[in-house]
């Protein structure tokens, strides 16, 4: 018993060490955010700030309306992620549980959207959104992130491993397809839903170009624009405040991570459900 405990402690320490190594660049950024300019520029190895000082954070908050931008990004990322989960889950349900004419063609057609670079469709999409009168609105900002085939694909891969027996059984019970999706499939798919939500939240949170193109007011800016606002094209990078802003911007995503951690950690599903 004792041996097992020691083993477990060693194992956990090892995992934590690997974890620290994985996030080393982030830790370095956190460390830089507390450093004074002269500490960043040293010839020797300087990993930790001499003392914790909040100058860079104050500077970042003074130069940008970061709190407002976080709210915007939260609306943008939260809103589009919810829609993404709903639309993608539904489409994947169809691709995974039904057999119909043209299914493979339709699926490949959807998949092809993953291969279209965003820059090449930017102008046409801007025109569409502007014609719809959606410039300077949150919905206009979200418009480019409402559906992602990547999410459909994620759900499909998961649903394909779902037990067909349960589906058949629910049908015998007189359960309609849509009811099955809402009442059984979706609740049992928490891990993948959480993963889809997190990944789309994070990717939307980090977008830069589109939210800036469709909005014209400073009050509609998002966090990534805020971070680059601290940069200076003519003068090169000022590390302290940028790192401080980056760390602040990272906090909400980390919180989302921790919130959804339990869902994912629960595993795909209990073995009994498997066919």
């Amino acid at each position, binding site marked *: 018993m004792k041996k097992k405990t020691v083993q477990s402690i060693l194992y*956990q320490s090892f995992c934590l060490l690997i974890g620290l190594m994985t996030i080393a660049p982030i830790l370095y950024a956190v460390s830089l955010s507390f450093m004074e300019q002269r500490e960043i520029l040293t010839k020797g190895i300087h*990993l930790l700030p001499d003392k914790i000082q909040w100058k860079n954070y104050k500077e970042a908050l003074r130069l940008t309306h970061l709190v407002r931008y976080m709210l915007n990004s939260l609306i943008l990322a939260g809103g589009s992620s919810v829609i993404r989960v709903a639309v993608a889950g*539904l489409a994947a349900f169809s691709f995974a549980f039904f057999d119909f004419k043209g299914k493979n063609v339709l699926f490949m057609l959807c998949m092809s959207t993953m*291969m279209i670079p965003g820059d*090449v*469709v930017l102008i046409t*999409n801007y025109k*569409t959104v502007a014609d719809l009168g959606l410039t300077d609105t949150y919905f206009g900002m979200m418009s480019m992130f409402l559906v992602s085939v990547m999410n459909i694909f994620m759900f499909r891969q998961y649903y394909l491993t779902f*037990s067909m027996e349960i589906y058949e059984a629910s049908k015998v019970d007189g359960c309609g397809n849509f009811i099955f999706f809402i009442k059984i499939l979706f609740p049992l798919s928490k891990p993948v839903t959480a993963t889809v939500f997190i990944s789309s939240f994070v990717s939307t949170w980090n977008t830069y170009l589109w939210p800036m193109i469709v909005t014209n007011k400073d009050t509609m800016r998002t966090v990534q624009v805020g971070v680059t606002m601290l940069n200076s094209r003519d003068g090169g990078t000022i590390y302290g405040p940028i790192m401080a802003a980056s760390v602040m911007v990272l906090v909400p995503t980390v919180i989302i991570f921790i919130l959804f951690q339990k869902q994912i950690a*629960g595993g795909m599903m209990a073995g009994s459900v498997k066919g």
Partner: protein
Amino acid sequence: MKKSRKIEPYLYILPALLYFTVFSFYPFLKTIGLTFFTVNANGQVKAFAGFDNYIHVLTDTAFLRSVWNTLVYVVLASPLAIFIALILAVLANKKTRTSAVYETMFSLTMAMSMSVTAMIFKIMYNPNIGLINKLLHVKINWLNDPEIAMVSVSLISVWLNIGFNFLFLLAAIRGVPGELLESANIDGANLYQKVRSVILPLISPTVFFLICSSLAKNIIMAGLPIILTEGGPKGSTSTMIYYMYKQAFGNMSYNDAYAAAVITFLFTLIAMLVSFSFEKKGVHYS
């Protein structure tokens, strides 16, 4: 599965399909159409060009180099990011008291934005004041040596993608029924054998998804060269879509840009079709 002739399955796909039609198919078909015309700097069609734009791009050494660079990047970045994430996922599979902590650490890289990551790595890569050279006691010019700049860029991308891949692989591995692993234990299988013969087949749908998505993402990658290297030094980090980006926004040449985008699309499509041809053989759905 029964063949259903009903309208129902189509209805479920309809919202996604409508959206793609408006924001992907329509603009991209328009782009494909424009590649057969000469377009001026204001985006106006000037004359029919046949395949001239394609010929021009395909004979442009800068584009050919971009094709090669993209290939190097994809071959380096895609498998490595999945492989490392797989190791981490196997490591994290067992639940312990501190699981939540290191799981978060392993997946955290996906929360990083590309621009911030680029800034951090730029200072870490600096040959004189950067942390990496200091710690390794080497004097490598990570981003300004044409021989290794693409490798350096790929490493950043690997790091960025570890978190995303890890998250999916962990979810998948956790789904492997405990009994199967236990019976493998009884058979005396070591970790490698367990991964190889029990875990991998069962998580193959997820691995397949990761391979496809990372291929697609990486073939059309342009962000890091735009932010970090401007395609240099000596064009060594210019990817296909970076080439497109530069032609469109740096040179106002939509002819080259659109043709390059369509060619890149075809590349990705081929990669995707090849991957899907393996789906039936290599991927096991329950």
